[in-house]
């Protein structure tokens, strides 16, 4: 990438950020909330894609860590923990710890076995949330009547109005994405890709494949937990559904829709997913059949996803011109 290209990319990102900052001024309140949800699911999908797109590991249990984040936050809020910063920190930490323990057992497996193993562990977490009624409220989940305000020196910012939640989520999503960006661009990120491309070769040159994968798993789990906290604050609840395998399928679908080979692909996938859903459910209750009918051609003809295909198409056009 040339220097000019880099600066162009930065400018584009900044313009995008500025637009997102202005979002609530332009958008009706309901769409502000939809965009908030897109941020959260976008972050969740991007953290999933650190495993899927960058490391070649298809995890079917990411909702487990998302849910751990949500439940830890909900439990801390319910016990009257006053500091939102600490709540977020603790929840992400707990999610990452769970990811460390589960990842340790999973990362030695590949492909379908990895997928099934993560599915199994995710569903065990689901069962705990669903059946440990004394702690988690069981199947009903945990309703939260209030969320502590954001406290900065001199400012107290309530998270009751949707617009405040929007900016709160935007801030944390941006932070999460920044971490991911740094990870992907680091030497470690290159190693991840190398593991995906050729596990044996990397092992030959002395790299510990399992440890590299485990590190990615922990980062992805922690960020999934962050997304979970944000979702918990946004909806003021934590429910076992957040941990079910059907919820784990969401980031998979969004990533495929957007494109796993592009850094922001999963986030765009989330945006496409939500906009489509809003569009389709306005006409029919059968959103699933429409989603399926859209996914089939995407998987068959555009395996790089919608945004990924767009990137490639633009790239090809440029190359043929030069």
């Amino acid at each position, binding site marked *: 990438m040339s220097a000019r290209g880099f600066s162009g990319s930065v400018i584009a990102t900044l313009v995008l950020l500025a637009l997102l900052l202005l979002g609530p001024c332009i958008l009706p309140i309901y769409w502000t909330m939809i965009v908030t949800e897109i941020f959260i699911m976008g972050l969740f999908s991007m953290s999933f894609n650190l495993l899927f797109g960058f490391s070649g590991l298809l995890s079917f249990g990411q909702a487990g860590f998302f849910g751990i984040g949500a439940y830890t936050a909900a439990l801390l809020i319910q016990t009257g923990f006053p500091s939102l910063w600490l709540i977020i920190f603790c929840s992400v930490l707990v999610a990452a710890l769970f990811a460390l323990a589960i990842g340790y057992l999973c990362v030695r497996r590949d492909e379908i076995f990895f997928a099934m193993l993560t599915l199994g562990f995710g569903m065990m977490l689901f069962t705990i949330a669903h*059946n440990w009624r004394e702690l988690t409220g069981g199947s009903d989940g945990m309703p939260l009547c209030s969320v502590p305000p954001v406290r900065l020196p001199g400012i107290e910012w309530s998270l009751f109005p949707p617009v405040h939640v929007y900016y709160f989520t935007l801030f944390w999503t941006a932070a999460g994405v920044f971490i991911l960006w740094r990870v992907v661009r680091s030497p470690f990120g290159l190693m991840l890709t190398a593991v995906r491309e050729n596990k044996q070769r990397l092992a030959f040159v002395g790299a510990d494949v399992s440890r590299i994968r485990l590190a990615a798993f922990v980062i992805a789990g922690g960020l999934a937990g962050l997304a979970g906290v944000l979702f918990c604050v946004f909806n003021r609840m934590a429910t076992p559904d957040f941990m079910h395998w059907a919820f784990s399928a969401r980031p998979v679908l969004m990533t495929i829709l957007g494109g796993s080979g592009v850094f922001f692909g999963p986030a765009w996938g989330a945006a496409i997913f939500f906009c489509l859903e809003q569009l389709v459910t306005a006409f029919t209750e*059968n959103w699933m059949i429409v989603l399926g009918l859209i996914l089939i051609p995407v*998987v068959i003809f555009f395996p790089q996803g919608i945004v990924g295909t767009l990137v490639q198409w633009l790239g090809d056009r440029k190359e043929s011109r030069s």
Partner: protein
Amino acid sequence: MEAFAVNLLNGCSWGMLLFLIAVGLTTVFGVLGVLNFAHGSFFMLGAYGSMQIMHLFNSFWLGLLVGPALIALLGMALEMGLLRRVYGRDVSYQLLLTFALLLVLDDAVRIIWGPAYHVVEAPPLLAGSFAFFTHSYPVYRLFLVAAGPLLGLCLWAFFRFTHWGKIIRAAAMDRDMAEGVGIRVPLLFTLVFGLGTWLAAVGGALAAPHQSVGPSMGERVIIESFIVVVVGGLGSFPGAFVGALILGLIESFGTVFAGRAQMALPYILLAVVLLLRPRGLFGREA
């Protein structure tokens, strides 16, 4: 003792139903290398399809014969139209394509037959119950216990002794080689996928008199049949049998000892097997 025997029978009959579903899944995986997420939907379609035929002609056996055959045709059409295009790709794309199929098929069933629950009656021959210790036990469940191994045996004989069975096994082992000796592999794949969907649909048709037919049927069995197949060893025939039996028994006896962990039992089984013996109980070395 008595409770033990009844639970054993319960576990076996549930296990054999799982086997009927899982055996198609494992066959398709063994030959085509595709883990079919929509397999549960074919199970459900089998139940609805045969129910429709039963209502039209008022015969359980005709429904069992015709319904699954129609679903197998649908499966073959879907293989030719869609699945064929993703064979060379990563496993995740095949999973996703079949997941998309699941979304479409499940919603389609609800649109066609409505969301209400339906009930199918067992044929007169298999209705009623017999005395078992102090309990009475339904004849139909015993029929299920017998149907599983019987069908499994037929399949085994088919793969072992018939010309087509041998060809399929050859193609599963080495696709290029099979093509080299003149086997029309794409046709073969279509037929195998048809066989897999047929097995799922037969499972659905046989399950119909035993449980209510409703739009959530497929969703409820798919993950469990995945677990059976992985535990038994992907692509392994005896593996599917043993895996299904184990899962059936664990779930049945789990009601006695597991308490709150009941729901997690299948997943614990899955994790333990994958951690200790990743290729499954009967799986070949990858």
